[in-house]
C-alpha cells in the first residue's frame, strides 16, 4: 500500500527561518552529516584532552596532576567518548553525507529518524560527561566496565549506563536507515556490484550496528538492574556470574571493533584508486573480505577473555586467526592498487598511505595476542594499548583524516591547504609512532594498563616519557588541522565539482551539492561512473 501525500500544485513560498532553527530542525542528510562530523570532532577534542592529561600524569612516577580517582575517570571517559562518540559517529557522519550522494539518491530513506539518531548522540554524550558533576565523579570502571567493579561506583556510573543506552539506540536507528537506503534507494544502473566500496563498508557496518548493539543495550540494562533494582546477574555473592558480563560485553564488543574499522577501510579503498589513477584492485575480493569479516566478527569475542582461563581456547584462537585471512587480502588488494599506478601525494593520499603503514603494525602485533598462551604474557599490559591504538588511531583516525581532506571540498566547497595538510600528516605520523610504538616494549616489560602510577625503579619511566612527548606532538598536529579548517572556511568557496578526478557519483554534482543533490544524474555503467564520464568527454 502506498501512502501518497496530497500535493498542492502551487506551494506557498517557505517562510524564511532563523539559521539556528534551520539547523536544529533539518532533515537534509547533508546537514545532518555535517552535524555528525561537528559533534564527533568536538568529542574527539574533549577525549583527546583527557588523553593528554593521562599522558602528562604518566610522564613520571608519583602524582603529578590528578588523583587516582581522577585518573580512573579520565581513562574511562577517554575510551568511552573516543569509541562511542567519535570513531563510530564520525564514520556514520561521512556515511550520512556521502551514501545518498554515492548511490545517486535524494536523501536517506528515513530523514526524520536520521535527525533523531543524530540528536540522541549529544544527549547521550553529555549524559556520560555530566557524571563529572556527580558526587564521587564520573564513571571510573573503564570503557569495558567489567562487573562487579562497575556495580560499585556512584551516580557517575549510572549516568554512563544511561548515556550509552541512548547512544546505542542512535546507532541501531542509523544502522536500519543505512541498510534500507542502500538496498532501496540506489539510482538506475547502480547495481550492488557497482556500489562504491565505501557504501559497501558502511552496509557491513550497519549490519553490525543493528545486530550487535542491542546486545550491549541488554547488558547495560542488566547492569543497571544489578545496581539499582536489586538484581544479581553479575554478582556472585547471590548466585550471579562475573563472566556473564564479559561474554555479553564482548559479544557486542568485537563486532564493535569492526564497526570502527570497516568504514575506514572503505574510505581508503576509495582514495587509493583515485590518487593512483587505477581501479581498485580485486573489487570483488575486497567486498568478499568485508562480508567474511562481518560474519566472522561474531565468533571471535572470547579472545578478549583468554586470561579468564575459562573459555574454549582452540575455537576462539582459530576463529581469531581465521579472521586475519580476509584482513590480509585487503592489504594485498591495496598494494596491488598502487602497483604500476601514478601516485599523487595530495593530503588524502598521504593519510591513506599512512593508514596502510600503521594499520599493518596493528594487524601484525595482534597476531601475538591471537595465540592464547602468548596472550597470557601481554594481555592487560601496554602491548594491548599499543595494539588498539595502532588499529583505531593509526587505522581509523588516519582513515578519518584522509576522508576529511578528501571530502572537505565536496562538503564546504573549499579545498583545505595542501601545505598545512602535509604538516598535519607528518607531525601526526611522527607523534603517533612516538606515542604508541614504545608501548609495545612497555607491555613486554610488564607495565599493566589502567594504572595511575608506577614505581620509579620499574624501568618504565623513559618509555613513558617518549610516549608523553609523542602525545603532545599529536596535539600540535591536530592544532594544525584545526587552523587549516578555520582558515579555509574563511575563504570564499571556489572548489570545482571534481577537484581530485574522482570515481564516484558525489563528484558529478556541485561542491557543495544542492539540497536535492543532483541536477542531472550521470549514467551508471561501472563502479566508476564519474571516470567513465570523463573518458567519454576525452573521446569526444
Amino acid at each position, binding site marked *: 500500500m502506498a501512502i501518497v501525500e496530497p500535493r498542492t500544485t502551487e506551494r506557498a513560498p517557505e517562510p524564511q527561518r532563523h539559521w539556528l532553527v534551520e539547523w536544529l530542525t533539518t532533515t537534509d542528510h547533508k546537514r545532518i552529516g555535517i552535524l555528525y562530523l561537528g559533534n564527533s570532532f568536538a568529542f574527539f577534542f574533549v577525549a583527546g584532552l583527557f588523553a593528554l592529561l593521562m599522558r602528562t600524569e604518566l610522564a613520571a612516577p608519583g602524582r603529578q596532576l590528578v588523583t587516582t580517582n581522577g585518573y580512573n575517570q579520565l581513562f574511562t571517559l577517554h575510551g568511552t567518548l573516543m569509541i562511542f562518540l567519535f570513531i563510530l559517529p564520525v564514520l556514520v557522519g561521512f556515511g550520512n553525507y556521502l551514501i545518498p550522494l554515492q548511490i545517486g539518491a535524494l536523501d536517506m530513506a528515513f530523514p526524520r529518524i536520521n535527525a533523531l539518531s543524530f540528536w540522541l548522540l549529544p544527549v547521550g554524550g553529555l549524559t556520560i560527561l555530566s557524571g563529572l558533576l556527580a558526587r564521587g565523579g564520573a564513571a571510573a570502571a573503564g570503557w569495558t566496565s567489567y562487573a562487579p*567493579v562497575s556495580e*560499585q561506583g556512584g551516580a557517575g556510573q549510572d549516568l554512563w549506563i544511561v548515556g550509552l543506552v541512548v547512544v546505542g539506540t542512535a546507532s541501531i536507528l542509523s544502522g536500519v536507515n543505512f541498510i534500507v537506503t542502500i538496498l532501496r534507494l540506489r539510482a538506475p544502473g547502480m547495481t550492488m556490484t557497482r556500489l562504491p566500496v565505501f557504501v559497501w563498508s558502511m552496509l557491513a557496518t550497519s549490519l553490525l550496528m543493528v545486530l550487535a548493539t542491542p546486545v550491549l543495550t541488554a547488558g547495560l540494562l542488566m547492569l543497571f538492574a544489578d545496581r539499582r533494582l536489586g538484581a544479581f546477574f553479575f554478582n556472585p555473592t547471590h548466585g550471579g556470574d562475573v563472566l556473564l558480563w564479559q561474554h555479553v560485553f564482548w559479544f557486542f564488543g568485537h563486532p564493535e571493533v569492526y564497526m570502527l574499522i570497516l568504514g575506514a577501510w572503505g574510505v581508503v579503498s576509495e582514495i587509493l584508486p583515485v590518487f593512483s589513477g587505477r581501479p581498485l584492485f580485486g573489487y570483488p575480493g575486497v567486498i568478499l573480505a568485508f562480508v567474511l569479516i562481518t560474519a566472522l566478527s561474531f565468533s571471535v569475542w572470547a579472545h578478549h577473555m583468554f586470561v579468564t582461563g575459562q573459555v574454549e581456547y582452540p575455537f576462539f584462537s582459530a576463529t581469531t586467526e581465521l579472521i586475519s585471512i580476509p584482513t590480509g587480502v585487503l592489504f594485498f588488494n591495496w598494494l596491488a592498487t598502487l602497483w*604500476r599506478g601514478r601516485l599523487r*601525494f595530495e593530503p588524502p593520499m598521504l593519510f591513506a598511505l599512512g593508514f596502510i603503514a600503521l594499520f599493518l603494525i596493528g594487524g601484525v602485533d595482534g*597476531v601475538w595476542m591471537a595465540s592464547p598462551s602468548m596472550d*597470557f604474557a601481554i594481555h592487560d599490559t601496554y602491548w594491548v594499548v599499543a595494539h588498539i591504538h595502532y588499529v583505531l588511531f593509526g587505522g581509523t583516525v588516519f582513515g578519518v583524516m584522509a576522508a576529511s581532506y578528501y571530502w572537505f571540498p565536496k562538503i564546504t566547497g573549499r579545498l583545505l591547504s595542501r601545505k598545512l595538510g602535509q604538516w598535519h600528516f607528518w607531525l601526526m605520523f611522527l607523534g603517533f609512532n612516538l606515542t604508541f610504538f614504545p608501548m609495545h616494549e612497555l607491555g613486554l616489560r610488564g607495565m599493566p594498563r589502567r594504572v595511575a602510577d608506577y614505581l620509579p625503579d620499574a624501568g618504565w619511566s623513559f618509555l613513558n616519557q617518549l610516549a608523553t612527548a609523542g602525545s603532545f606532538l599529536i596535539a600540535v598536529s591536530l592544532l594544525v588541522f584545526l587552523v587549516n579548517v578555520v582558515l579555509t572556511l574563511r575563504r570564499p568557496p571556489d572548489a570545482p565539482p571534481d577537484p581530485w578526478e574522482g570515481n564516484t557519483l558525489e563528484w558529478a554534482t556541485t561542491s557543495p551539492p544542492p539540497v536535492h543533490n543532483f541536477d542531472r544524474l550521470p549514467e551508471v555503467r561501472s563502479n566508476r561512473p564519474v571516470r567513465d564520464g570523463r573518458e567519454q568527454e576525452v573521446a569526444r
Partner: protein
Amino acid sequence: MAACRRSRIGLAVLAAAALAGCAKQGATVQGQEIHDLYVLIIILALPVFIGVEGVLLWCIVRYRQRRTSDGQPVSQRAGGPRSLAVFFAIPTVIVTFFFLYGERTLADVQRPEPNPAVELRIDGFQWQWTVYYLNEGFFVTGKTLTKEPVFELPVGAPVHVRLEARDVVHEFYVPDFLFMRNALPGRPNEFSFTPTRIGTFRGQCAEFCGLHHDQMRFVLKVVSQADYVAWVDQARKAAQHVDCNPSGPLKLVSKDNSWNTGCLAVAAGSPFSVSVSNLDPGIEHNFAIYPKAGAKRPLFQGPRFAGVAEKTFELRPLPKGRYYFQCDVHGPAMSGALVVK
C-alpha cells in the same frame, strides 16, 4: 648481487634478534615456552611486516607521479579470480602453521602439575593479595596502601596455585613469568608453574579493579631450597607470636580495608562489647571470631554492613585462650588475634 642479498638476510636476522631481546626470558619452565613462542611469531611476522612495508615504500618511490610519465596511460588491470585465490592462500598457510604451534605451547602451559611441591591459594581483594601456604599452615597477606605481601618459593619445585577473588575481578600477573591469570569471584582458577631462576620478582594486579588498582603490588622471591625451609619456619613462628593486654572496651576501625589493630585482648569470664566502625564508603565488612585461623565454624559472626557506619556487638564471655578474628569479606587480610586472659 649475492652479497647484497646475504647482507639483507643478515639484517633481517639482526632485526629479529633485537626484537626477541625485547621480550623477557621466562623465569619459569612455562614462561620460557611462551618466550619461545614469541620468538617464533617474530620469525613469521617480520617477513610479512618487512614485505608489506617494503612494497608500499617501493610503490611510493617507483610509481610516484613524474613529469615524464604524464600522458602515458596507467594500467587499468584490476585482477581476477587467480590473484584473489593467491591473496587468500598466502595468509591461510601462515595462519595454519602458527595456529598449530600455538596450540602446542598452550597445552604445555596449561598442563596441571600432578605432584606439586608447594600448594598455594591466592586470594585477590580490593586492593591487595593474600597467599595461603596450604600444606605449611600459614599465610602472608598484604594490606591496602600500607603493606605489599612478600612471599617466597623454592627454585626448581613445581607450584600449584588456586586463584580466587573475594570481591571483584583481579589478575595475578608476574611479568618475569610471562604469565597472568584472572582471579574471579565465584570461579576459581588453577594453574601450575616451576620457577627456574633465583631472584626477586615483582608482580601486580593487571585487571582494573577499582580505585587503588595501581597499588596492588606484591613481591615474589624465588630462593634456594634451604632458604625456603628457613623462611617457612620463621613465618610460622611469627604467626603465633602476636600478644597484647586487656585495656578497656574493644574498638575496631576499618579504613582502606584494613583494621586499626591486629590484636584484641579481654578478661576471661566476663561479657564484653566490640564496637566496629567501617570507614570504607560503600564497602562491606563484618566482624567474626573463630577458635583459630582456618576454622570453619565461627564462635561469633556479626552481620556484613557497608561503610560509612558503626555497629556495637555484645558478646558472651569466652574461656581463657587465643582466638582468631577477621572480617569474613576480606579474610586474613583483615584479621588478628583475640587474646582472652
